């Protein structure tokens, strides 16, 4: 009797589970399919099958590359290149600066450390970005950095979450590893390069992804600081499809599709490191 109940539960449970999973997937997938299909549809037909809703809305029945062609004609390729360049530069320069600081916060004892760390983290949560944008714009303008790459790049370099990650990770490295090298007379920089770096893959990947994605998705600052057409970034280029008196839907969605693919391709293979870095279990 008892066994019977159990085995029935064993059948019912997975069934419920799979139904729930399926519902979840539908809720996620339907809007995505519509968006993807619409990006391959002529603009005036984007809503044809969506109102009233029919299955045709989920497939590009009136297939055209018009939206993608228009986008790239307008210079979307350049925007992708710009953003890619910016994001990579952010990862390299910002990664180095944040890692060094994270190391100092995680491994050194010095006066004012706690205060400094807390203020670095806290000040970043000063919202909104738009409000601090005016004083920041004034600074950047004083440097003569309007419409320049450094103006676009520099504000994205300091990232509290990344410093936080580095600090956590470095703090967990066993002291003996470092001591051994120090006793051998290695300089700190040498310790960092030859001992710490090789075991820091998870945190480096995770920090790199975070910085890459946040630069890839940045919108307001680039819009503000570099209005020139040849310096536009992806999100700004996409937003241009939303006009004051009407939206070019298929271009908006086509741009979003391309903008989404890049982070997905990057995140999927590296997701494991991401978690390792956050949980600090990267040193098994």
């Amino acid at each position, binding site marked *: 009797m008892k066994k019977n109940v159990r085995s029935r539960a064993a059948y019912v449970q997975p069934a419920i589970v799979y139904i*729930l*999973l399926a519902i*979840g*997937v539908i809720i*996620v997938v*339907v*809007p995505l399919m519509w968006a993807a299909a619409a990006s391959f549809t002529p603009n005036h037909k984007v809503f044809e099958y*969506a*109102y*009233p*809703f*029919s299955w045709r809305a989920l497939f590009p029945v009136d297939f055209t590359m018009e939206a993608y062609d228009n986008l790239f004609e307008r210079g979307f390729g350049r925007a992708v290149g710009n953003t890619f360049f910016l994001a990579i530069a952010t990862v390299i320069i910002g990664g180095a*600066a944040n890692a*060094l*600081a994270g*190391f*100092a916060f995680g491994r*050194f*004892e*010095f*006066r004012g450390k706690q205060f*400094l760390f807390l203020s*670095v983290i*806290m*000040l970043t*949560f*000063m*919202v*909104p970005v*738009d*409000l*601090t*944008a005016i004083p*920041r714009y004034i*600074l950047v303008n004083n440097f003569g950095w309007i419409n320049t790459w450094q103006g676009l790049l*520099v*504000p994205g*370099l*300091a990232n509290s979450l990344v*410093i936080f990650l580095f600090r956590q990770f470095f703090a967990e490295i066993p002291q003996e590893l470092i001591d051994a090298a120090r006793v051998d007379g290695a300089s*700190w920089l040498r310790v960092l390069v030859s001992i710490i770096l090789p075991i820091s893959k998870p945190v480096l990947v995770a920090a790199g992804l975070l910085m890459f994605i946040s630069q890839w*998705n940045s919108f307001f600052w680039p819009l503000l600081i570099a209005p020139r057409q040849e310096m536009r970034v992806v*999100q700004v280029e*996409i*937003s241009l499809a*939303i006009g004051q008196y009407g*939206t070019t839907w298929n271009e*908006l969605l086509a741009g*979003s599709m391309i903008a*989404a693919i890049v*982070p*997905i391709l990057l*995140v999927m293979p590296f*997701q*494991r490191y*991401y*978690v*390792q870095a*956050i*949980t600090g279990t990267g040193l098994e």
Partner: protein
Amino acid sequence: MAVLRKKKPTTVIEKFNDESWRRKFLSNVLIPWLFIAPLLIIHLYVVAIPAVQGIYMSLTDWKGVGMNVNFVGLENYRELFFEDQTFGKALNNNIIWMIFFLTVPFILALFCATMLSQVRRGGMLYRSILFIPYVLASVVTATIWKNLLNPQRGIGAAIDNILGLEDVFGIAYLGRTESALMSIAFIDNWQFWGFLMILFLAAMQSIPPVLYDAAKIDGANRWQEFRHVTLPGIRPILVFMFMMVAIFSFLAFDYIFLLTQGGPGGASEVIATQLYKNAFFRFQAGYGAAQGVVISIFAGFIILIFVTVKRRGWDI
């Protein structure tokens, strides 16, 4: 005099010649600051100075255009806490928002991650699909869902159509005071939870399978397995994301602004949307800055809670 004068520099030189002192100076002062310097310079310019300026502005009647301001002390804060009746409502909405995001996405993500961790084939595909929303720009997600939730032409209307009903599912979710905030939270969550799931899933996969085998031998059922093996195994990331989500709940802005701008009738107003309107439509940027400071105090408070909990013996 002459002797004294001569003595001072020699002390420093002596000190500097003293190896142990030099070492101490190097490792306790110079080296750490050298490591921090590059970041500090950047941070100072792009974060700290603007933020401190923001704090100062919260003590003024700054209008948001130009830099001629009058110092008003804590007047903005007094008004915020004692006079502004809409602030309480906005804060309340932030708390509802936080409760929603500390439960719904976590339950969904834990559930799906647990399921998917057992799927052998096609797991990567599922994951990728469930993750896509996270990397869509919020403008795009908002416009897609605005259309899907449209009462006459959206999904609700389609369901009504199939079931032969009228105006049951096809209602203006975003246009009703009782459902606006939750609808926005649903949409934001639609975008966000996949990210949580990916994190949990990766964490679950790093739990040694031996632990599950041991649990099975002890006769644990699925729930017990989850409770005693999975949950402790992913606790660090769980707690960390709890903290981050709690903080971001006070920063909630973009979806609300894109979908209802706080309406109808303030039903979905949160602190950040109020702040935005104060700073940029009402020319009360100083007042808005005060709201910004209040938000960051909340954020600091949340961090403090987690740090304290951690000191008490939890891992973060």
